[in-house]
């Protein structure tokens, strides 16, 4: 994976493809004006989830893929973001859109603070500490002393926001656009961060921490700040999920959420920005079609049991690590390089 130093994020020329892609995503809800399918709002909701997961995976990718710090605890920052938004909306009467930057700030702080001890930890140890964090968080959220704010085991129920200024969109169409705009801003920000001097420093630390230090990069500061930014981005995704689902509860933020981010990261591609969108979409598709995948597998392999989504995730992770360690985006990049070489020779 160190060979991914030449990542798409730092290459020029991808702009047109990316632009086309974002325009396509922005045009999707317009289909709602020509179709009268009753499940259209549900598709919009799936779209929101995909974008939210894409943002969360982006946060994780910034840390793992670009900075080389392994975290299995990003469900915790997702939870902090979601609860920040929920508590502000529920008790503070803060408008939903204002909760996003606040959640980003709170999670940046939380990530920065957790990043401090993480500085001394590397590789397996960091994975271990964050693994523990992911397991401790649901229990912490249920704690009685803060149940007045968090709603305890039952969680908090919120109101779904309506489109402002009388825009003629359904609530789900509008929320899709909200997620899309936030995703574009975050992706644009990370793209620019990685393209510049700071981005090169972040990646240099991943490739060879000690060499980066000798070149004058303050590795400690860069690592904690990257941890903070990563947590902040994932926190924004958490806040968006609280707004779109209009409900938060402790048991949505388990280790399994962290694992699904990791699945998105590995499937999409480590250290790839387009890979985050692929990964985000993938998580939602598998979650929603796990029943039909299970049925198909039962028929094809004449199994006696239902195949749970987690077995599919796990098997897929293993297969990818063996056959496609750079994920779908990495595979596409290899394919593109091969095709490009072929056409030049001819």
């Amino acid at each position, binding site marked *: *994976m*160190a060979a991914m130093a030449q990542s798409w994020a730092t290459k020029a020329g991808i702009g047109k493809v990316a632009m086309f892609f974002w325009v396509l995503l922005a045009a999707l809800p317009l289909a709602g004006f020509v179709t009268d399918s009753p499940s259209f709002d549900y598709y919009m909701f799936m779209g929101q989830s995909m974008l939210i997961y894409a943002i969360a995976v982006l946060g994780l990718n910034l840390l*793992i893929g670009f900075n080389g710090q*392994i975290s*299995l605890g990003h469900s915790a920052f997702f939870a902090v973001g979601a609860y920040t938004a929920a508590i502000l909306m529920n008790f503070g009467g803060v408008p939903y859109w204002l909760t996003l930057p606040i959640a980003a700030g709170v999670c940046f702080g939380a990530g920065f603070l957790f990043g401090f*001890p993480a500085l*001394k*930890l590397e*590789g*397996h*140890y960091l*994975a*271990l*500490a964050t*693994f*523990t*964090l992911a*397991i*401790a968080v649901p*229990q*912490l959220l*249920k*704690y*009685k002393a803060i149940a007045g704010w968090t709603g305890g085991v039952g969680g908090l129920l919120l109101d779904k926001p309506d489109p402002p200024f009388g825009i003629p969109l359904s609530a789900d169409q509008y929320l899709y656009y909200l997620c899309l705009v936030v995703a574009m801003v975050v992706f644009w920000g990370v793209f620019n961060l990685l393209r510049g001097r700071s981005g090169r420093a972040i990646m240099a630390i991943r490739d060879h921490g*000690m060499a980066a230090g000798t070149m004058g990069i303050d590795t400690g500061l860069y690592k904690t700040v990257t941890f903070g930014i990563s947590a902040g981005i994932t926190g924004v995704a958490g806040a968006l999920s609280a707004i779109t689902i209009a409900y938060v509860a402790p048991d949505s933020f388990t*280790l*399994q959420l962290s*694992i699904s981010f*990791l699945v998105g990261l*590995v499937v999409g591609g*480590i250290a790839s920005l387009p890979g985050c969108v692929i990964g985000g979409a993938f998580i939602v598709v598998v979650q929603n079609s796990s029943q039909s995948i299970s049925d198909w597998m039962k028929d094809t392999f004449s199994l006696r*049991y*239902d*195949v*749970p*989504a*987690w*077995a599919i*995730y*796990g*098997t*897929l*992770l*293993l297969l990818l*690590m*063996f056959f496609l*360690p750079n994920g779908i985006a990495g595979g596409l990049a290899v394919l593109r390089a091969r095709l490009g070489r072929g056409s030049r020779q001819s």
Partner: protein
Amino acid sequence: MDFFIQQIAAGLTNGAIYACVALGLVMIYVSTDHINFAQGEMAMFATYLAWAMIDAGVSYWVAFGATILIAFASGLFIQRVILKPLETAPVLALVVCFIALLSIFNALAGMIWSFTIKQFPSPFPQRDVFGNGLVSVQQIGVVTVTLLMLCLLTVFFRFTTLGLAMRAAAQNATSARLMGVRVSWMLALGWGLASAIGAIAGMLVAPIVFLDPNMMTGILVYGFAGALVGGIANPLGAVAGGFIVGVLENLVGSYIIGNELKLSFALIMVVGVLLLKPAGIFGRVIVKRV
């Protein structure tokens, strides 16, 4: 005072189980430098196998022995088939593999045996030892089994050629290979042993916490904490660490923070030890050569 003694006894019982889990983690860490996140789920799966056997009418101790053998074989198998090809892979690939194994075992157990809680029989009677309600036979039994296993392992590593070969492979793979030790197979044996120890831990804890696919998640975290407190490169230290964590967890839980925040306490212990004394109480500080 009675309450205090009860808490210590319960803490030692839990500690024995954490010690087993920690020992399994250390086995794998010493030989390969990996932290096996799937240790808990592998133990859980083995415990389900034991349950299925007992449910089918096999006697407890036969099922106990058979499960340990199956767990040993599957640990060996996992190392040979999944981890050996990744020997030179970066840390992230290994962590992803362990997480994948964790998901697969958890999902498989739920798929085959459903997620409903099951009762697991205990070989030890529930009655008191002294008749004053302080210490039960069950608790003494769990601690005894752990200590017995520790003695067996010590004998194995100290006094057998195979044990010596395994230690050599873990300490200096290149020299061991030059001396004719098949290092790669020694690592596989380590995995087999770790998996078998995990199975014992699972079968000891299942009567206490009941059997369900998520029963080992919290225990694994305490096992981590125990291994780190004692020193993750030191088997005896890990066992001591497991007992320390078990007792502390119970005392802190019942006197200071209450049972609802026990996992957060484990988190604080893990982060605290990693920060303040990464080598653990009994571990040696390893100086990295650049």
